[in-house]
């Protein structure tokens, strides 16, 4: 093989090895612990697994960081739901559920004073999970109002009021 041929062969080999390495490592990254799926609002849903109820905290993986939250599966009044979900807190104001697959929370307002109920729910939500507002805003939270509570506000997904994606109830 001529020198020119050797050089070409070497470059081609290096390119091939480099591209294989890029392919291999990017494939590894996508098949690690978390996988993503499309959500309707354009934000990815990061999948998780049901945490053990014996630990004090468990981690929720968000797009930016991993947030440790108090282990709601160990709460005495927690009620197991389908899809490994949990109704971890209910009060006269709200009903809270968590689903590990979407690593997301649903806060349903169940009191006709929806504004006050929302404030109570948001405050309790952070206290129960032992997180601050910044951390709460990174979580996947759907805040909803059933039609039997308030017909006008029903159907909306309001989020947490103090977060950038939070929406006010209709007046």
């Amino acid at each position, binding site marked *: 093989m001529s020198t020119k041929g050797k050089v070409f062969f070497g470059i081609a080999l290096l390119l091939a090895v480099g591209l*294989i390495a890029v392919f291999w490592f990017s494939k590894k990254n996508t098949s690690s612990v978390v996988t993503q799926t499309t959500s309707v609002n354009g934000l990815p849903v990061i999948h998780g697994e049901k945490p053990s109820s014996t630990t004090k905290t468990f981690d929720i993986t968000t797009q930016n960081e991993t947030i440790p939250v108090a282990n709601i599966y160990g709460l005495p009044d927690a009620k197991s739901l389908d899809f490994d979900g949990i109704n971890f807190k209910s009060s006269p104001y709200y009903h809270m559920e968590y689903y590990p697959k979407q690593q997301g929370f649903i806060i349903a307002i169940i009191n006709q004073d929806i504004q006050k109920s929302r404030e109570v729910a948001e405050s309790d939500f952070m206290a129960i999970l032992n997180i601050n507002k910044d951390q709460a805003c990174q979580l996947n939270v759907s805040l909803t109002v059933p039609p039997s509570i308030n017909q006008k506000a029903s159907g909306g997904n309001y989020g947490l009021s103090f977060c950038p994606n939070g929406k006010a109830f209709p007046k």
Partner: protein
Amino acid sequence: MNFKINLKTKLKLSVFLLCFLALAIPQASFAECKYTPMEEIPGFGKPKSDVEYVMALYQFGLWTVGIAAVLMISIGGFMYITSAGNASQTGKAKEYIFDAIAGVILALTSYVLLNTINPALVKIGGGDYGTTTTSSSCGGGSSGTSASGGSGTGTNGGSGSGKCEPITTGPCSVDQLTGSCFDGIADLSKISALCNAESGGVNIPSTVDLCTNKTTYFSCGALQVNLTCVCKGTNAFTGPEPTTGCANFSCTGAGANYQSCVNQKCEGSGNITAACQLYKEHSGNKYDTWSRNSGSNGCGFS
């Protein structure tokens, strides 16, 4: 070294370009259609959507190219070693090796290009393709049966505010509905939004939908279903059972199997499956299965 493009190389390049286009185009077109793939791609499991299916095919193709290249380089190397100075044999061996490497480079270049355009394009398991689900012009659609008489809906709830947004968590999230009975026959984004409008996405016993005894509820949230309808004929309720469609909500109280009905139809997958059955059986605009879809303040999905 001869870099003249011969017919064989032209053919290879054409195939590569065709493959590249075939991979790029479906990202835009398939994103709007719901199709449930039936066959799995070896080594990549059963893809959950058409987009995943195409990406699995692509990655399967990449691995095939890689394996074929290793094989051809080995054969070329063996030929080179055993050529014993035979110039023709040596040339053939080199051609095998260079062709194999060129094939790998071509295949992986497509990966790098797609990855540069949008990393989600090369990820198996979804990824944000930058589209929302608003399928209305895709073929296929409902495979449900026609209604078995009656024009009533099987679900409850009054007129709404017209604001119908999907929820991102739980049984009614698009993520959880994917792979459910609704997948492939309905726009999951609309089902999720209707679920939110009907119940806020949670299963809570209704305080409004009550039998005449005022204590027995006949709906329990999430994608609300009329329990007197979906548990018809099981002695779950006392009083007259619905005779036409599911519009008759009359019941006097709980029957012997009421709790069993509640356990089956008032949570998670059982609730979704029951709602989906009603959706399949509904005639006309199937989203009108839920009363929150129609009316001046309804979601208005079609």
